[in-house]
């Protein structure tokens, strides 16, 4: 899945996803990507978030909505993302998933669930402090 969040210079937010889902899924299966609050969520009052990974599990926790609510409650984006991953870890310690978060002042962060084969998550950032898109990595928790 590509999940994307955009904060306009005026503070307007938008978020989106696009994916072809899991390989060899049962026909008819839809994951988290097209579900608002699961695949992505945005609210000018707080910020925006998007998720990627095992959509069958992510869908049950509405991670993007939850991350935006954590930011609404004052958490910085990185912390908001980490808290979402922690919530899911309690039930599914081996789930594959990552979340990106951004608030309306332009701060951003990401978090992921550490697995033996997934210790770091790469994501892209472009803002007015850089003159090109930058790849960033976050250590999974």
């Amino acid at each position, binding site marked *: 899945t590509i999940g994307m969040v*955009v904060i*306009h210079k005026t503070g307007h937010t938008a978020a989106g996803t696009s994916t072809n889902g899991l390989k060899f899924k049962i*026909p008819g299966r839809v994951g988290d990507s097209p579900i608002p609050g699961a695949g992505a969520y945005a609210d000018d009052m707080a910020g925006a978030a998007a998720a990627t990974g095992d959509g069958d599990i992510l869908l049950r926790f509405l991670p993007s909505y939850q991350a935006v609510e954590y930011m609404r409650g004052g958490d910085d984006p990185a912390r908001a993302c980490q808290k979402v991953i922690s919530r899911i870890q309690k039930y599914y310690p081996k789930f594959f998933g990552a979340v990106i978060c951004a608030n309306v002042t332009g701060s951003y962060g990401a978090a992921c669930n550490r697995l033996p084969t997934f210790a770091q998550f790469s*994501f892209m950032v472009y803002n007015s402090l850089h003159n090109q898109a930058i790849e960033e990595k976050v250590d999974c928790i």
Partner: protein
Amino acid sequence: SNPLPLVVNTWPFKNATEAAWWTLVSGGSALDAVEKGCAVCEKEQCGGTVGFGGSPDEVGETTLDAMIMDGTAMDVGAVGGLRRIKNAIGVARKVLEHTTHTLLVGDSATKFAVSMGFTSEDLSTNTSRALHSDWLSRSCQPNYWRNVIPDPSKYCGPYKPPDFLEQNNPAHKEVDIHSHD
């Protein structure tokens, strides 16, 4: 200094990030930027997990999921299990702009897309067909079935619930004494 505007996306899909950024720089809205950025990945089949020709289902078909959300109006458009249409995020944008619904799924979402002017075409490619035939040759492993017969960790389907045979065994049907010759 103020870092806005800001584009963040999952995975190192740089072309998508740049497409979104240049949409903003050329005066587009945040929604336009998300649509353009994700559409680049659909065209480029980012990571094999976005767009046509990837992640075939059990019968070899590629279907697409996408959503787009306007955080100012709390407005959303989304498609799930979209068949035969490549530009899923574009269709999601049309759901947002031309309906009061949020999510359209399956064949009916395809009909909606065609009515909005999108082209219906096969989303399979040699790559997705090869992935599928290879999966079949490996006894359909891995798969997402459990508590069914035959043992899904060893065999392909079709699968049935374990008690299916019991329920459908004619010998166990109640006899209707009023139904007779």
